[in-house]
């Protein structure tokens, strides 16, 4: 029961945001749907008259339909920027296929005897289309619109990746923050919208032409209203256009901290981390919440602003391993510590750049680095026991995993088994605790905030200084889990605010405080 109450509490507390998101969601769905109708029905009519074009048109629409939505949104950014525009165009593309296909099927499915009768009575092409073919094909065409509407309500949740708002903000924010209330507050209204739209359009399908005509007028009004809404709501004047991930938006060491500690009220857009670097590079965004060692910082010539009031806790990477395991594999600790202090932020960024942007394999990047550090040794044909290394599901962890594998194979007689791509922190940590893996690289900030979750006072106390954080997690992990944090590798993969280098230099902004001052100026 308490769970349920807290969900309602969440809804009540967030009802303004929720209403806004529902409004945006409906706006996106309707606008894209109406555009898809405006494009799809004439196309369907065209290919029903020129059947030779039908394979081409239906084929292309089918191919567009199979492009994963995130990828499609990614293609949209260089062309249409971020915000409602790319989202609506992507949704339009998804809605097209069912509408074109059903218009085509509906019109070609009209009884040829009836069509011949219309011709024989002296109707011209347009009279035949509007008096006979359309009315008879209408149920099939509306069934297509119905399919498109339901698809669009679903896909519109992804609009939050390109800062177009919608219920996706709650859904994806909730997933990142592991907040079920937030997920449900987005998912339940989205599901209800889909069901309601389906019912309403289903009702229209059975109604007469006259009601249909009336409904089209109403839809027209809604279209204009939502259109105006987008026109005015997406253009508040901002000196700096900020785009943050849904996770960053909801965290104390994120937007909340920026507001309370730096007094920075940026009115940020919500975007996916998959596209935000690109958007910053394209100057669609000026300020983003990235990770300090991401390879794209180098690729897109971004600069990290100094966190001069330290709201971002340090995220120093180090292997974590059971004390028992260290005893079981003598020599392992020394081997793993070979990497300690060897990789600083800029080196890690560079290594990430090589895998993510230059598309080199993690093995090659790991080997090249070890060779340059004179740490590389050829692998022994291990005869000893097997050590299992785990990694989370992003590039940096793959590189670290390869380095540890090469070091163990080069310096010891153990065999190595790798388990890459273990979803998130929780999965990696559970795997370690249940002896499914022997160690994996973890970050001190994650250990503190996600795994230990101490009181806010403790967090504030220990997160100011990287050494204190490390000492705290080291001590607590030993006490609570019998786990060891080995020596830090050297780099800090923390949250960071970043801007284009050129713009930062032009505005003389190096720290977050300076950014705050710039924004406060009139």
């Amino acid at each position, binding site marked *: 029961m308490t769970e349920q109450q807290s969900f309602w509490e969440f809804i009540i507390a967030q009802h303004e945001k929720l209403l806004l998101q529902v409004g945006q969601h409906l706006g996106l769905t309707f606008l894209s749907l109406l555009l898809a109708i405006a494009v799809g029905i004439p196309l369907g009519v065209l290919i029903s008259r020129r059947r030779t074009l039908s394979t081409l048109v239906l084929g292309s629409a089918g191919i567009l339909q199979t492009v994963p939505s995130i990828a499609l949104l990614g293609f949209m950014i260089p062309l249409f920027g971020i915000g409602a525009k790319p989202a609506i165009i992507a949704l339009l593309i998804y809605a097209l296929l069912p509408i074109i296909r059903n218009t085509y099927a509906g019109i070609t499915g009209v*009884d040829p*005897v*009836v069509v011949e*009768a219309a011709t*024989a*009575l*002296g109707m011209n092409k347009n*009279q035949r289309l509007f008096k*006979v073919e359309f009315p008879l094909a209408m149920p099939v065409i509306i069934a297509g619109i119905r399919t498109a509407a339901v698809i669009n309500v679903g896909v519109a949740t992804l609009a939050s990746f390109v800062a177009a708002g919608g219920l996706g903000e709650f859904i994806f924010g909730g997933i990142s923050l592991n907040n079920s209330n937030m997920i449900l507050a987005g998912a339940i209204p989205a599901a209800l919208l889909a069901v309601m739209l389906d019912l309403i359009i289903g009702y229209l399908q059975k109604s007469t*032409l006259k009601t249909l005509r009336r409904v089209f007028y109403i839809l027209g009004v809604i279209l204009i209203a939502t259109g105006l809404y987008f026109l005015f709501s997406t253009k508040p004047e901002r000196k700096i256009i900020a785009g943050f991930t849904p996770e960053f938006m909801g965290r104390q060491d994120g937007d909340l901290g920026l507001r309370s500690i730096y007094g920075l009220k940026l009115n940020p857009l919500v975007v996916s981390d998959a596209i935000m670097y690109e958007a910053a590079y394209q100057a669609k965004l000026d300020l983003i919440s990235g990770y300090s060692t991401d390879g794209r910082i180098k690729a897109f010539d971004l600069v990290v602003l100094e966190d001069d009031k330290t709201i971002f806790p340090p995220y120093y990477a180090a292997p974590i391993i059971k004390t028992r395991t260290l005893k079981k594999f003598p020599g392992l600790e020394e081997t793993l510590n070979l990497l300690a202090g060897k990789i600083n932020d800029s080196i890690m960024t560079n290594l990430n750049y090589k895998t993510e942007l230059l598309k080199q394999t993690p093995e090659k990047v790991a080997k090249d680095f070890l060779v340059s550090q004179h740490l590389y040794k050829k692998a022994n044909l291990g005869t000893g026991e097997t050590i299992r290394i785990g990694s989370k599901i992003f590039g940096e962890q793959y590189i670290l995993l390869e380095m540890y594998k090469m070091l163990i194979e080069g310096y010891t007689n153990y065999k190595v088994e790798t388990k890459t791509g273990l979803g998130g922190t929780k999965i990696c940590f559970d795997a370690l605790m249940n002896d499914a893996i022997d160690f994996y690289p973890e970050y001190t900030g994650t250990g503190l905030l996600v795994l230990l979750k101490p009181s806010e006072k403790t967090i504030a106390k220990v997160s100011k200084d990287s050494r204190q954080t490390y000492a705290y997690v080291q001590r607590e992990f030993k006490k609570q889990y019998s786990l060891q944090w080995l020596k830090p590798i050297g780099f800090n993969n923390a949250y960071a605010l970043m801007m284009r280098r050129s713009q930062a230099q032009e505005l003389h902004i190096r720290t977050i405080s300076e950014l705050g001052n710039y924004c406060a100026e009139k």
Partner: protein
Amino acid sequence: MITIEGVSKNYGSNKAVDKVSFQANDREILVLLGTSGCGKTTTLKMINRLVEPDSGTIYIDGKNIREQKPEALRKNIGFVMQQAGLFPHYNVAQNIAVVPNLLNWEKKKIESRTLQLLEKLHLTEELLNYFPHELSGGQQQRIGVARALIADTSVLLMDEPFGALDTITKSAIHDEFRNLDELRNKTTILVTHDVSEAFELGHRIGLMDKGQLIQIGSPAEMLYHPVNSFVKDFFAGNRLMLEYKIASVKMVQPYLKKQLKAQERIQNANVWEALQFFSTEHTFNEDYEALLQAFNQYRKLQTV
């Protein structure tokens, strides 16, 4: 008047219509008769340009039909189709009013003309609000005829108009159709594969085979003066009945040896109908035989 001159139409290597020429006169019903695939429907559809001929010319009242826009041409030609071809989303009133609406008639004129036609076709006014799927086959076909007649065009084309009806409905509708005064001022061309329908409705019959027009003439000419064995064989199966049908009682009257008892009852019938009537009652046995003898005398003179 419709004049067709050397019209041909090929579908690939198949000659659907092969150099067909004939004339359909004012105030006549010309029936194009033949088995399926003989080219009769294609010939019919070339007259309102649903099909365009590969060669040859068609004139209506002396005007080449290619000199008009197809839509304008079709508005001046009534067309009845095999399965009525009514619009399923229109009720009966709207279906009948399609052409007048295309011609921008006034509402009142459409209404009064519709009511006039309903009466002539023995349909009730309440049907006007029904939709086609709520009607019987015979009713649908009558509505199809009304739709083709409403604009009172000088040409009426009918493509197997009664083909989908059962025999009883068909003969009832044949009677009505024959007596329809609306047809009096028209050139009507009717396509059918039904031999007895051709003989019951046609003033003249054109027999087609493999895209060619084999013979065109009055029903009597078709039966008694066939141009070749194909024509002769074509009617062999129904021949006796057809002969009775095309001879009216009035035509055999001069050969009667005595006055018939039921003379008045059969005055306007054909021999077939009269014999049918006589054969139902014993009291007419003498009449039956007398009429039969007279018919045989009449027939001898036809085949000479």
